[in-house]
């Protein structure tokens, strides 16, 4: 007999329609290690805690980036509190103490130490703080799972529609890896973050669907309507037909976009432009194919950072590299060496007054040679690369640093420590001094990659995270564009390629202007790939050159911004004409 159709209303958190079989996601409780650790294992347990903490920090940062201005004050406050909890010196002291003195494994140490605070907050009469318990639990569980590296989602099938009581941001990131088609949940602790991630991953999401779990069973046919905010369980024949029609219409609108994305990047006159993706977390790797990026132009390695010979760290990084290499296939893969700051070193107790002008990037790599060497060994002793491999060094400010890194590589090669020999060596141009002296750096490297986020920040002396100076952080500042042009001219003279891997490249207008300057390779957040490819195809390289030269000769930020706008206006006209 046909089961009765049930419609449950909710909040439309991320758009799109999906029809299919439901999967009821019920996370099992956390199981903690019970074995005491021996003295030799303590360092490893500390490492496990630090690397889990780093991953959660990056996740929080990622959410903040994805969200930009989409977060309301409450949501932002919850993010801030999450960050502050992770930075809490007493909490960390307590956790490390449990490992060192009580010989607890990292997962138990984290769990128990958090529990201590949760119990205290429970006792406190203050309702606001009691409500923070949900945040504490979320961070605790994320840390514990990251330490245990438990994949809670083993049983989730691809293409299922996941329904659950509650969804955390880290769960969504993991869901997305299983190619789930949609999500619906009854509630959520950090729900606004979950929907930001769902949006950026293009997964339809309905939130606040009341009593969902009481009414749906695993394997039921359901519809998740992320446009209207509705979940329909066991839809009747007519409902199903209606939704299939709606889905078809949506698919057609999307089709031209995807078709363009499938084609290689090029301008109207056929000038080939390679469009690649930036990748920071393993969960993002699947998006390479989804958005038809032509390889990875910036593989950030900090999330899987290891210092020295930590086995777990090395293993994590290797898995990450392998997955990235597989996703790239015969397309290029550009790996950036650790771009970490002093905060990554627990023993580096001294707080830096001004970390952006402090000990980071190549400075740390050169000061801690074994770290540089072990990462190079890891990258260059693999045989899973099918396409061209590039390695680049962050935060270069002068020629000497380049030569020093090269010297180290030559010594390692001579000693036979690096198996792979066919790869290219390049640097990030993200500090004005490197752009200005680019002509003297270019002869020593195989390529440049311009990091526009830091280049903008350092050129304009404006921290883009600081709301008080945010209006000064303007990537259309002509000074930034002149530095890009300078770097590019130097590269052309030395006949080496230049790519741009900052956020600038994900803005279709700015991406076109970069091509106008002569950049032939762009790397961006994967979801931006289709829009950039589409716009590029509407202009010839000669046209873009003209726009770009207007930007570099603009007298003010406003003037440059107007030129970008006129390019966008022209684009709109050309799109309508079709």
């Amino acid at each position, binding site marked *: 007999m046909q089961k009765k159709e049930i419609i449950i209303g909710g909040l439309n958190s991320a758009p799109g329609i999906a029809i299919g079989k439901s999967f009821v996601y019920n996370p099992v409780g956390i199981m903690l290690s019970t074995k005491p650790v021996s003295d030799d294992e303590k360092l490893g347990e500390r490492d496990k805690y630090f690397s889990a903490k780093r991953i959660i920090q990056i996740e929080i940062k990622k959410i903040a980036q994805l969200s930009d201005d989409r977060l309301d004050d409450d949501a932002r406050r919850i993010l801030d509190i999450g960050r*502050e909890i992770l930075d809490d*010196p*007493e909490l960390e002291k307590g956790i490390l103490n449990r490992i060192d003195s009580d010989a607890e494994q990292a997962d138990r140490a984290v769990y128990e130490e958090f529990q201590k605070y949760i119990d205290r907050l429970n006792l406190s009469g203050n309702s606001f703080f009691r409500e923070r318990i949900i945040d504490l639990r979320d961070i605790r569980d994320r840390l514990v799972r990251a330490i245990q590296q438990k994949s809670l989602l083993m049983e989730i099938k691809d293409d299922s529609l996941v329904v659950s009581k509650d969804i955390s941001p880290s769960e969504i990131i993991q869901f997305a890896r299983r190619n789930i088609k949609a999500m619906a949940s009854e509630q959520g602790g950090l729900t606004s973050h979950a929907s930001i991630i769902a949006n950026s991953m293009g997964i339809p999401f309905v939130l606040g669907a009341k009593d969902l779990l009481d009414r749906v069973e695993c394997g039921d046919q359901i519809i998740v309507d992320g446009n209207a905010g509705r979940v329909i369980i066991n839809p009747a024949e007519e409902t199903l037909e209606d939704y299939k029609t709606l889905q078809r219409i949506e698919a057609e609108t999307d089709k031209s976009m995807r078709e363009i994305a499938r084609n290689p990047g090029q301008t109207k006159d056929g000038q080939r432009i390679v469009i690649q993706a930036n990748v920071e977390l393993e969960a993002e790797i699947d998006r390479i194919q989804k958005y038809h990026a032509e390889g990875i132009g910036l593989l950030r390695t900090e999330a899987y950072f290891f210092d020295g010979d930590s086995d777990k760290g090395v293993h994590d990084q290797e898995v990450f590299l392998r997955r990235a290499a597989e996703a790239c296939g015969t397309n290029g893969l550009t790996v950036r060496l650790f771009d970490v700051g002093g905060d990554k070193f627990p023993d580096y107790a001294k707080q830096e007054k001004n970390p952006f002008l402090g000990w980071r990037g190549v400075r740390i790599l050169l000061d801690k040679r074994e770290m540089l060497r072990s990462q190079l060994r890891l990258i260059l002793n693999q045989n899973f690369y099918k396409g061209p491999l590039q390695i680049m060094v962050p935060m270069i400010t002068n020629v000497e640093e380049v030569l020093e890194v090269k010297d180290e590589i030559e010594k390692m090669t001579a000693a036979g420590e690096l198996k792979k020999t066919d790869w290219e060596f390049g640097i990030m141009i993200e500090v004005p001094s490197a752009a200005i002296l680019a002509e003297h750096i270019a002869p020593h490297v195989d390529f440049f990659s311009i990091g526009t986020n830091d280049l903008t920040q350092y050129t304009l002396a404006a921290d883009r995270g600081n709301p008080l100076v945010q209006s000064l952080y303007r990537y259309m500042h002509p000074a930034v564009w002149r530095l890009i042009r300078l770097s590019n001219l130097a590269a052309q003279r030395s006949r080496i390629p230049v790519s741009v891997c900052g956020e600038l490249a994900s803005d279709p207008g700015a991406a076109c202007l970069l091509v106008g300057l002569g950049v032939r390779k762009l790397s961006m957040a994967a979801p931006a790939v289709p829009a950039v490819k589409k716009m590029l195809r509407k202009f010839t390289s000669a046209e873009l050159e003209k726009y770009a030269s207007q930007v570099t000769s603009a007298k003010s930020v406003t003037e440059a911004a107007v030129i970008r706008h006129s390019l966008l206006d022209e684009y709109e006209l050309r799109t309508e004409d079709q």
Partner: protein
Amino acid sequence: MIKKKVTVTNPSGLHARPASALVRKASDFKSEFHIHMYGYRINAKSILGVMTLAAEFGAELELEFDGPDEKEAMDAIVKLFEDNFHESENGQQNS
């Protein structure tokens, strides 16, 4: 080491934003900073410590600073209390 007594005079007590603001400001200084209240002593650079203190309106706290910049730290923190943590303003500080 220097100490100073203050009273929580902002209506909602040392809640989310004030607690964050306090911890953040405290972290700007090298000196150690502890708060005494009803026999408890907590590290004021610890958000969880400040949260579990749950100081309400009217609570009397003793602030204790110890370190090279203790004077500056105390002035800055006392000022936060005197300004009621800018409770009337909505501006979110950058972290």
